[in-house]
């Protein structure tokens, strides 16, 4: 609560408080294969967001009665570190985290060939180390890479990005400040090669026309992050290839 809310989030030239244009994403850094124990892992920094994702599986299901006869049990836990936000967050899962874990799992599941591994589970863990708006989206982007890194067969990568309306203007990739001070926020996850929207939420107020524009902004944002996502995945295996050839 130490930070004062600024008067305006966008200036008269449509420049945002962090210097970005309306359709400009925050700088992002993505890395694949960052954790030793996990079958697959990824790390993303998007603006001030710092998020780790790890995948364990396919493996035996615990407890066993949860196993599904015809497909793998995909589980997901989205969790925020107590120190990831301004005021300490209790480490116990909040209702928000329970809901996000559910929608993130449902955003990733369409990309996974779950029918390949019946009677098993694939567990996805997303840890938000530092949060600054758009953590569910960055979390999905990282978790999808962690799934790929774990060698889980997938139809496409899932990439996510939010767009919204702040002070009457439509913009992409809202920071926490913009989200809280703005009129609407629409997080969206997307499989770029299948043109499939796998996560869509909204809160705020938008007319149908504005909503259509916001969704298109978010999809454009997804396509941009997708380029980084692919590069991150490739660069891990290029590094492996070089190490093998040496």
């Amino acid at each position, binding site marked *: 609560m130490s930070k004062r809310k600024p008067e305006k989030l966008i200036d008269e030239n449509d420049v945002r408080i962090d210097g970005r244009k309306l359709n400009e994403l925050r700088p992002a850094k993505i890395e694949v294969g960052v954790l030793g124990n996990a079958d697959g892992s990824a790390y993303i920094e998007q603006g001030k967001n710092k998020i780790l994702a790890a995948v364990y599986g396919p493996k035996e299901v615990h407890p066993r009665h949860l196993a599904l006869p015809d497909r793998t049990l995909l589980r997901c836990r989205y969790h925020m570190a107590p120190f990831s936000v301004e005021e300490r967050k209790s480490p116990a899962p909040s*209702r*928000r985290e329970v809901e996000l874990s559910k929608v993130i799992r449902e955003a990733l599941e369409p990309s996974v060939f779950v029918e390949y591994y019946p009677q098993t589970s694939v567990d996805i863990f997303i840890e938000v180390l530092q949060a600054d708006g758009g953590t569910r989206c960055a979390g999905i982007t990282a978790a999808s890479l962690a799934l790929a890194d774990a060698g889980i067969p997938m139809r496409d990568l899932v990439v996510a990005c939010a767009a919204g309306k702040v002070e009457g203007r439509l913009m992409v990739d809202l920071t926490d400040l913009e989200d809280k001070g703005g009129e609407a926020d*629409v997080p969206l996850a997307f499989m770029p090669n299948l043109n499939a*929207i796998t996560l869509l939420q*909204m809160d*705020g107020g938008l*007319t149908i026309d504005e909503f259509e524009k916001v*969704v*298109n902004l978010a*999809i454009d944002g997804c396509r941009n992050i997708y380029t980084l996502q692919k590069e991150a995945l490739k660069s891990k295996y290029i590094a492996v290839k070089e190490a093998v050839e040496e």
Partner: protein
Amino acid sequence: MSSSPIVVRVKQKRIAELISSGRRLDGRGLTDYREVKLEVGVIERAEGSARVRLGKTEVMVGTKIEVGQPFTDVPNEGVLTVNAELVPLASPSFEPGPPDENSIELARVVDRGIRESKAIELEKLCIEPGKKVFIVFVDVYVLNHDGNLIDASAMAALAALLNTKMFNYEVEGGEIKVKPGYTPLPIRDYPIAVTFAKINDKLVVDPWLEEEQVMETRLTITMDKEGKICAIQKGGYGYFTLQQILEAAKIAQEKTEELRKLVVKG
């Protein structure tokens, strides 16, 4: 009712075939709601209450008002709290215990509709800025689950809020003194949720349980009285195309208006 994956696949084929020819197992058209029955004031002990029957789905909502502390970031506003219980008597698939992800999602989607449309004039519920405000508890109680709990719950919550009476009071030396008589809870908007299921690449409105069991995915759009979208939630394991989402938004605009007339009378 909690079907095995094989039973679901057999059903899925039949339901999907019908839907691709524009029909449904229970005889409805693709954008028809089941019959909505609404009663208000069903629980005298609650400050407001409503029971909604959507076909065989049955949801009761009771509201309670208490005095408590405001959130520090909005010291001048009352507090809204929505909770949902999937009561075990409502379905063989509901189990006793702490709220699971489904009931949390249900509560949060209903909450988002009310909150984002600014339906309750929360700023009028401040007693002493930063210290004392009214807290409005909206408790969603699912009594019979036959699909589309979100729309039924959202309707019941709105009806219960419109039915909510607050006691009159005055503040004397920091203490609240109850005065005789009641005033209605100040409500300025009427959010209505419309839920779609995607089955065999087609959208149907108000899925009942059998359709929910076979649907690929689900989309809920909540709109305020001006037809603006105030909340959206996608659920389920499938995906939507952009065209499907925009089509759903157009249908939702029509349907929310239709349903709103049932809940908000006069």
